[in-house]
């Protein structure tokens, strides 16, 4: 049992550290977002209001930092797989959004640029699952 526990040390250690840093960043983002909505919106127009409203991006930056640190921490094969998956997801997202550009011309509803972000995340998840299941 102790042997089994020590055998999982590498993956568990890497995953735990990543989750701690990522969820910390998400918590910071959420906190700043709530504060920005609560205090930023009623403020008078000006530089200070802009800074308060954009402050949740500090949490977003922290999340990027957590992801960069995770990529540096994982082993070479996992890093290769992850970067390939991101590249594939980006290419598929580019294809999908480009296609939707033509559909908008054909009369489909205009979508927010924010949608691209959701498509990228979803595509990345699908690519990860497919590659894991197929072992490619």
């Amino acid at each position, binding site marked *: 049992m102790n042997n089994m526990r020590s*055998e999982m040390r590498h*993956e568990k250690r890497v995953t735990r550290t990543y989750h701690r840093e990522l969820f910390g960043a998400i918590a910071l983002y959420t906190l700043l977002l709530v504060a920005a909505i609560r205090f930023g919106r009623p403020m008078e127009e000006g530089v200070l209001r802009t800074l308060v409203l954009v402050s949740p991006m500090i949490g977003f930056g922290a999340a990027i930092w957590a992801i960069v640190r995770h990529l540096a921490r*994982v082993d070479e094969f996992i890093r290769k797989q992850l970067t390939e998956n991101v590249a594939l997801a980006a290419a598929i997202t580019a294809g999908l959004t480009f296609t939707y550009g033509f559909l908008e011309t054909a009369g489909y509803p205009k979508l927010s640029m924010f949608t691209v972000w959701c498509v990228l995340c979803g595509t990345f998840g699908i690519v990860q699952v497919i590659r894991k299941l197929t072992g490619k």
Partner: protein
Amino acid sequence: MKNLLRELRAEHGWSQAHLAELLDVSRQTVIAIENGKYDPSLPLAFAISRIFQQPIEAIFTPDQEPA
């Protein structure tokens, strides 16, 4: 690149997870190398060579030997 990782690991009676821990990599990486789906970097190949106390060329061989 072909390799004898699976055979050497079996000789030592180690699981993939145990070898992964010795190499400080994930089990997925050991599986990928054993299945010939991933060729390790030189530092990792040297680490494998050290653990099994065999030269790299005794563990890894190119798919096609150069003419």
